[in-house]
């Protein structure tokens, strides 16, 4: 039962705030409640009212009403500070597991100045500060990553307590675009030797054309067509690829199967470390993962490509959890601005 209400609440919020990389804060998706300081303040006002009644003191009444009205006025001011603000996810960040991944966001103020705005995810936050009306500010919000894969914060909270800190107005952005978290690099035992003892790999055969040290394995997606043994295909109808042992065994190839016996995640961590190391030294290297191979290359772009491959190996790209209901349309404006946002990630 006590799980029931929060779950209903979550569902209600999720329906109210659909996943989007751009969020315009309006009365529909802004929430406002007194902070704990505000609750204490309300109790203080009650105490003052009682004091006024018991001492029959008109001026205490007056100051109580004044502060009460200020409290109500602050409610509108706090709400208006955020209303009209547009929050855009410009770029979802990338980083190593366990580090803070920086999400690049932009806040554009509406007609009102946005003052003392805070962005936060879980327990990390970043202050945007003051955004004058009509202008925008860009911030990088650190999101703590726990494990490799796609990192998509369920909610990014945007909050202000301006002007008095007695009330907080907040909303959430539920981004569509996910950041990518690379595996945590773990120093790999330097084993240039062949991963011969690999159990799943087919036994090394001597192919008919006399190439030594070639391993044969079934074709998988991503294998280059030059590698396919077409003669064999013509003979048996099986697509078989020759993995040159000379390549595999050389330090140029970083192979998933090289750390047989280790857990998959650990293997990925080792590979990650190797990729980073190779990337630093500027060496040429290729990456071979089950179902995926990246041809040897060098340079930062290649390194990042490999890291991304390691990060997302075996992971599903997160999709919008709640699809739009049938017949609903998005505000063309919001949709359009979103295109700008996601464009940055490309």
């Amino acid at each position, binding site marked *: 039962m006590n799980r029931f209400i929060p779950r209903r609440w979550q569902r209600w919020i999720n329906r109210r705030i659909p996943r989007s990389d751009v969020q315009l804060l309006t009365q529909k998706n802004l929430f406002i409640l007194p902070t704990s300081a505000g609750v204490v303040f309300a109790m203080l006002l009650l105490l003052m009212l009682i004091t006024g009644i018991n001492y029959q003191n*008109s001026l205490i009444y*007056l100051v109580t009403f004044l502060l009460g009205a200020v409290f*109500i006025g602050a409610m509108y001011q706090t709400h208006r500070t955020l209303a009209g603000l547009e929050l855009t996810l410009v770029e979802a960040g990338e980083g190593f597991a366990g580090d803070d991944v920086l999400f690049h966001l932009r806040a554009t103020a509406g007609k009102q100045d946005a003052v003392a705005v805070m962005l936060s995810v879980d327990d990390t936050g970043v202050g945007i500060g003051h955004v004058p009306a009509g202008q925008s500010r860009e911030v990088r919000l650190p999101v703590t990553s726990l494990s490799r894969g796609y990192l998509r914060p369920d909610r990014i909270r945007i909050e202000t307590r301006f002007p008095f800190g007695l009330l907080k107005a907040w909303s959430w952005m539920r981004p569509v675009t996910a950041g990518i978290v690379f595996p945590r690099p773990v120093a790999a035992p330097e084993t240039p030797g062949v991963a011969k003892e690999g159990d799943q790999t087919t036994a090394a055969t001597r192919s008919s054309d006399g190439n030594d040290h070639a391993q044969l394995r079934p074709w998988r997606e991503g294998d280059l067509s030059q590698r396919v043994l077409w003669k064999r295909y013509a003979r048996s109808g099986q697509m078989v690829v020759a993995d040159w042992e000379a390549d595999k065994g050389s330090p140029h190839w970083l192979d998933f199967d090289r750390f047989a016996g280790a857990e998959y995640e650990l293997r990925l961590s080792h590979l990650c470390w190797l990729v980073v190391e190779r990337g630093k030294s500027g060496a040429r290297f290729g990456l071979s993962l089950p179902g995926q191979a990246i041809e040897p290359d060098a340079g930062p772009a290649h390194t990042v490509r490999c890291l991304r491959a390691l990060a997302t190996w075996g992971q599903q790209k997160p999709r919008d959890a709640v699809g739009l209901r049938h017949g609903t349309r998005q505000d063309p404006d919001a*949709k359009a601005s979103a295109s700008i946002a996601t464009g940055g990630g490309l």
Partner: protein
Amino acid sequence: MISGYFARKSQLKADRLPSGALLWLVASFALLLTPQVGRLPLWLLSVCGLLAGWRWLAQKGRVRLPGRWLRTGIMLALVAVYLVRVQGSFTVDTAASFFVLAVGLKWLETRTARDFYVLFYILVYLVAVNFLFHQEIHWTLVNLGAIFLLLTALQMLNAPDLPGGAMASWRRLGGMLLKVLPVVVLLFLFFPRVAPLWSVPLVSGQARSGISDTMRPGDISSLAQSSERAFRVTFAGEFPQNRDRYWRGLILDTLKDGTWHQGDTESFRPPGRVNLDGGVGELQVREYDVLMEPTDQRWAFALNDSAAVSDNIAEKGDGLFRFRRPADSSVRYRLALESSNNPVPQDSALKPGEASRYLQLPASGNPRARALAEDLRQSASDLEVIRRLMNRFREQPYFYTLRPPKMPVDGVDSLLFAEKRGFCSHYAGATTFVLRSAGIPARVVVGYQGGEAGAGNEYLVVRQYDAHAWVEAWVEGQGWIRVDPTAAIAPDRIESGLREAVAGEGSFLENNWASAQKYGNVPLIQWASQQLDRINYKWQRWVVGYQGQSQLNLMSRLPGGITMKELGYITAGIVGLGLLVAGAVSAFQMRRGRRRDGYGRVLSAWYRLCEQAGVPIRYGETPAAQALRLAEAEPAVADSARLFARMINSHYYRPRSGRRSVQESKSELKRLRRLLVSMRRQLRRAGKTQ
């Protein structure tokens, strides 16, 4: 490259407090102390100043805040000093001192926003406490100013980087206060003033300046140096003559060790609930309305032959009136003069107990005064004795002075026969002594005599220097008659007040340089102080005194018989309506469209253009891709569209370091707009040709 700062939330909270916020908090504390300066002990004030200064220097980085042990030590020491000083009495006064001490100590450990809020709450409540002590309009303004500063401090705490600093936050705050002002006024008028829920401690336990219930000769002459207001009186008709303005307060009938006391000491009664209903409506004929400053005593001052009209006072006997609760704040009450042609039924004789009480004298002392009484007694009637004593005062060189000599032994003798210089209390005491020695029941009456007209002759102001002591003697057949030796010695004092009476001596308010009354002969000062007093009087009667009965009285003038219940509904209605109006206004403002930056506007125009050209905007598409599709659909605009997309792209994805200045982006925007216009034109032309 990116504005903003990284921090864990917990770190944000533990951050250094913004100096601006702290500064305004200290300023409001200083402002809140000003009404208390006369009341708080000096040690407390200096400790508060010291601790606040320490905190400020620590903020500036000059000194360090004390560690936990030192802090605890300081706290324990100061609380101990406080407890010793207070000695267990609990009143609002002592509580307020403790508040001030708590604020002072809190300065040392104000490190986090949480501490800041604690201070804020205490200071807000200190405003309420201040209002218990002072309700004058200038103190009201001071307190409201402190509230303003407190709210400024809160704003600074929550938005330290707001450009414009204090001025900007004042503008915001001022605008907000203006908007909520109508609601505050309506609430003030209509919020039902319910009766006190329970009885509360007295505001002050300290004796205030004013007359006291004992009289040592010379006591009242110290009051004569004070020009503080005692009370103000409005009469239904004409003011009584100055010589008839004897405001009786209490009767002192027991002489002990040269000091006059009240015979029936008023036994302690719990203070009871606050009752400020001093009568409402127009004054009836012969009624008068007194607004008394706080005395912390129960006694009310009344003219001879008065009867209570308002129910916050009750007659005690002997023509004296008492409040149901000590006057710990200013209080208004109403009395009526009984018509003089309806003589008070005079009992033929005093009760036996009373006779001995009013003839009580010490067994010995002042032999010459007793001899004088014997001498006077030769003449037959009591009246004759009194007349001859007054004649003695009138004919012999007795002087009325604010600088009486010290008369430590046999005070009556030295006053009557040696010094012949004294103040009203000396002469009243001596007269009572002589009359009692002569066998005439007599008593000292203490109160005020006189009072000067306020601005526009609307009301009388009676001040502490009008404090007076006189004598009442019992005469067979006539009852208690007033005997005032001062009237015989210095008729000016009774006819026109103390100023005239001591004009020759120059001792009027001689130690009170700041008092406006001292300069009563300067017309401008006189006029200004009168007008100020009138404003304060109106303020106290109509705003401060707007309570219970006065509210219902005002409401009864409105149509539709409003009672307490309706007031509750009206209050709820005001709050609801206020919320609704504010909500509607803010929704309206939201709907009027939000302002975005120039690029945003240009982009939406571009989207509209694309949609019109039959190229729907797809989610997650770059402008370049859109331009490509637009170019396919409308080859006429292909070049412009591509250029547009390139410029938009370069604006949004340009590295920060390459950002343009305001001028540059302005001209860029202009180009973008021109491009849009030309694309529209091209589209139109293309449509026509097709």
